[in-house]
């Protein structure tokens, strides 16, 4: 039982860190704000949640579980809001889109 729980927990944590890795790679490799927003928000949310779930499994029914749930809630809320805020302000500031072949001047309005 304990071993199985550990394995599941470890697997979840590994998945979480994998997503973190992917997200960070994306953040570094993507060419502009909007595309970078994509890996960073999504992968981070997913990665963090996976890790939290892993830890929840690891801790079992305990006081820590409550804390983890609260953390997860806040994480989901804040991460999404951040992504929204960054994307929106980038849009409002007319930050250009990225185009292939170095054509980096988009129409800027996103519409």
């Amino acid at each position: 039982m304990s071993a199985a729980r550990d394995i599941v927990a470890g697997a979840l944590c590994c998945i979480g860190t994998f997503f973190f890795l992917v997200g960070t790679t994306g953040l570094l490799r993507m060419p502009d704000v909007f595309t970078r927003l994509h890996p960073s928000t999504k992968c981070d949310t997913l990665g963090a949640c996976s890790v939290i779930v892993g830890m929840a499994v690891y801790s079992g029914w305990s006081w820590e579980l409550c804390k983890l749930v609260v953390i997860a809630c806040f994480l989901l809320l804040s991460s999404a809001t951040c992504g929204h805020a960054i994307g929106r302000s980038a849009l409002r500031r007319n930050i250009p889109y990225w185009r292939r072949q170095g054509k980096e001047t988009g129409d800027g309005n996103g519409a």
Partner: protein
Amino acid sequence: MKRVLSLFFIAALGVLLLYVVASMPPMGDPQTPTATHVIPRYLERAEEETHTENVITGVILNYRGYDTMGEVTVIFCALAAVLAVLGRERRGRIRGFVDRSPVPSSTIVRTMVRFMVPFIILFSVYTILHGEISPGGGFQGGAIIGGSMIIFTTVFGLYESSRRIPQKVRAPLEGSAVIVFFLVGALGLVGGGNFLTYAWPHAARGLQPALVTWLTVLVEVGIGLGGAMVLISILFAMIREEEEIALTA
């Protein structure tokens, strides 16, 4: 010429430091002077001597409380320096301020921030009060409060946030960390010890643990509040400066 000289100087310094690090006692070795002289006593007896479970808190607030008093003064000094260079906003709250940030925030963000900030502050209170037994403490808690206000201010603007924490509140609280330290120190004198004695020699033996605990908490709260107010005041001063630039431009 200057560049070459400074390059040379930096290179020399780097070599010197590398050389020293190479000849320093090995890291983590239990036989190093650091591990054998003062540290063992802290680790072994801090709990009974300072009545705090967290040894680090015991060291920074009790054994070396005076240093910490200096450090909170440094933080306060940073605020005074910022105010000296940027100037403080006029007495009372800032009037006629309109949110000039280039991106008016959306309803989602506003709602979320309004929802989150109380929780953040709750968490900071937890951090401050728990500093005595677990990692955390006044500095961290204060930083968290400050952070929450930074979020609030970026979203709602200076007017809203300075309405909530006006100068009237900040001015007396900015130095609360130092004041509390001084108070505790002076009380130590009253209690028959030296400055910054938490366990008053004149107090009954059984009363001492509680005394130390409560005084420690008091100090933590003072540091937390002071740190938070300093951060907020610095933030306001800097935003105000930006405003002035924006107005003149």
